[in-house]
């Protein structure tokens, strides 16, 4: 009897051969396999696999498959167990249903739910409602968070192309505050790769938080190569950030970077930054001294230490000597 049911599950007659069993199984799998039918097919697929496995023993004559005289424990776990389960479920179901039906009948007899009970049910439902609203308000957080995590993970990559992919995602979503926050945090801790620096800066070009981002970048400035430092300097100049952002460049190792910062230094200076700037007079490089002297001249600097006079007489570069003498002339004129 049971065996016939298995044949039926595969749509076969009881005299089907092993080859037919396999073919039927595959045809049904093409329809019910969970990868085709989705999770709804799982139950049906389990049925046809079970039929297949049973018929495999019977029809294939495969001595490697467990024979029908397998140990009792095995047979019971395969077949009997299922039946116990089903009967258990059925019992439970009947119990639930009969109780419910009785209740529904009772309710129908009363016509209406008594007010005390109605009030209680109402309060239970409204509590559940408010709890679910609370949970719903956090909806979407997860997807936003996992998005951000995915992007930040890729920013950490050492593969420039992957970083650029991530940056593109950030620029699409630059409005998202959390994403901007996480990105700035990332760059505060990690220095951008030279290959991706321009793209990183592009992302923040139009952002209101570019000042914050620039200061995150400046914390790595001493590790920047000359070319990268100049790229950053140009952006800061274009973004019209205050001179506070220029100061770190004055202590960079490369004279061209210092010169670049001096070249874009605003004319009006307060007294506090003057010593810092004029302190650079001790440097010997022409690249630094020329823009520095030009800046000091515009600022009407007074040569207190005699260094400018010395530069005017002794420095090998004609450009330095010319600018220094211009300052000294101004000083003498006043």
């Amino acid at each position, binding site marked *: 009897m049971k065996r016939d049911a298995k044949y039926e599950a595969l749509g076969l007659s009881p005299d089907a051969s092993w080859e037919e069993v396999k073919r039927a199984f595959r045809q049904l799998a093409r329809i019910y396999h969970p990868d085709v039918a989705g999770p709804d097919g799982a139950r049906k697929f389990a049925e046809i696999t079970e039929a297949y496995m049973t018929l495999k023993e019977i029809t294939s004559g495969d001595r490697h498959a*467990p024979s029908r005289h397998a140990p009792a424990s095995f047979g019971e776990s395969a077949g009997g167990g299922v039946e116990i389960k089903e009967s258990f479920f059925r019992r439970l179901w009947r119990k639930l249903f009969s109780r419910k039906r009785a209740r529904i009948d009772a309710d129908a007899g009363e016509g209406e739910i008594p007010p005390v009970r109605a009030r*209680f*049910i109402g309060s239970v439902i409204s509590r559940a409602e408010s709890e679910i609203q609370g*949970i719903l308000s*956090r909806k979407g957080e*997860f997807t936003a968070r996992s998005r951000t995590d995915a992007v930040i993970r890729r920013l950490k990559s050492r593969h420039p192309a*992957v970083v650029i992919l991530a940056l593109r995602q950030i620029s699409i979503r630059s409005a998202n505050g959390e994403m901007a926050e996480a990105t700035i945090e990332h760059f505060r801790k990690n220095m951008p790769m030279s290959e991706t620096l321009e793209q990183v800066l592009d992302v923040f070009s139009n952002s209101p938080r570019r000042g914050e981002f620039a200061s995150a970048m400046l914390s790595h400035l001493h590790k920047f190569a000359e070319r990268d430092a100049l790229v950053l300097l140009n952006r800061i100049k274009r973004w019209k950030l205050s001179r506070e952002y220029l100061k770190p460049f004055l202590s960079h190792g490369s004279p061209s970077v210092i010169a670049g910062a001096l070249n874009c230094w605003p004319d009006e200076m307060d007294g506090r930054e003057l010593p810092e700037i004029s302190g650079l007079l001790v440097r010997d490089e022409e690249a630094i001294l020329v823009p520095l002297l030009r800046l000091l001249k515009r600022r009407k600097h007074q040569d207190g230490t005699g260094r400018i006079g010395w530069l005017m007489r002794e420095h090998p570069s004609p450009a330095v000597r010319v600018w220094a003498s211009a300052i000294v002339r101004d000083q003498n004129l006043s």
Partner: protein
Amino acid sequence: MSEDFTIGVDLGTRYAQLAVDIPGRGVELIPNRWGQTKIPSMVAFTKDGLVAGEEASRAALTSPDMVWWDMKRHLGTDWVARVHGRTYTPEELLLPLLSILREDAEAHLRAFVSSCVLAVPAHFSFLERGALSRAARQAGFDRVRIVNEPTAAALSTGIDGRFLIIDFGAGTLDMSLVEGEGGVFQVIESHGRKDIGGLDLDRLLAERMCRNAGVPLSRPGDPRATLMMLEAETVKIELSSANRVVWRVPAGLSGGGKSVEVSRAEFESLIKPIMEDILIMVEKMWRKYSPKRLLTVGGSSRVPMLRRMLSERVREPDRTRLRPEDAVATGSAMYAHQGRERLLIDVLSKSLGIMNSDGGVVLLLRKGSPLPAEARQIFTAYGNGAIEVTIVQGERKVRSIGRVLQTLTIDKVSDGEIVEVFFRVDGGGLLHVEVKRKKKTSRKTIALDSDESGVVACDLPTEMRLREERIARLSMSYPDNFQARLLNITRDARSLRNDDPSLQWQVLETLDRMISELEQVASP
């Protein structure tokens, strides 16, 4: 959005390969940042931390004691790598490797990649599969599917009829008997050995080369031993097309600059015992099933001796257009679109059962069952306390050779409580275990922490559907306005379907509480 690429990953012992199946364009191999499609499966510890791939293979020559390339063989064991007083598990070592693979795919496809199909040797246990899929999830793959290497290769061939496919890689030998019919590829049986691989051939050859050149053989862990293995690999590959190769001892080894000759006959006499082992396995499968065709894939299948012996004693292997090294990656990429044109049905390679309290074993899923497969077992508690469920895997005589996978402890059961344990093995042989507890009215699911226990939590949509049914049944007796409000609640709960699982759990709890309170008042 173009973000739903699923890449196929062949995480070989020696090389990893990536492929992607783009609808309309077919399967293509993904080159890495250096333009190679073969990426060394190596991880090294350098001053920049853990690095993988090409960078690691460069480090192999300078500090070989800080380089690992056999993590896959150690998965699921308690092997650890020690570096500067820190230990790394095989999973942790695989992390940088899987990450660079993902990044290479992202750079090539110009999109984020967050799902993959990982090919594993057919003999991998549930533990090893679980460990690998966990590592992949940590490396940024949100969705991970597992597929067996030989069956992935079978999928890539697309052959109809019964065939035997042999996957001979650097670290493993796997063979599967597959029947293809109308786009359905059904695996009948798979076998694998993890102690036979191309690396073993390299080792034998390296010993002989050293002896021929009069170079002392270095101990494993010595920088020179790694160099020697790489030299042997090169010579082995050359011997596949040449009868004799002149090997010039590199400068790094003692006796550098000397040259010696190695002949193919010499190499073949060395590897004969291994080849005999393989042939015995193949012949056994061949006799049992008498397939129509024979296919060989994997880098080591290029060794001419294997082909010759198979032709003489079994059958001439088919010549396919596919490069043998690419078959697994290609098949894995195709498996990403499983169910569309081709359907692969794998089998459970080892039986699964649980151990009773008296030490006896109840078989739940039998070896050879088509996958996915599921089973459940009901336990009734006698007395209060905890129930322990010991999951074992192995053959029918589980008691003697079975391997204990894991012991689940179900806490705080009360006398007479019924506990249901669901076992589900998915299409790639990953095991999911779920425990359901039923008391009088509430049904609770214990979420097993997937990152700790190697098994993953239950199916949320089903749970949600169960609640909906019960709410619907309850509301039948209520006035219209209550019915409408309950309907709203279920709709809200359903709207979280694609959101954070932890939110969904909270909703389930809220619903459970509401249901039990409503049921109490319904039945005085």
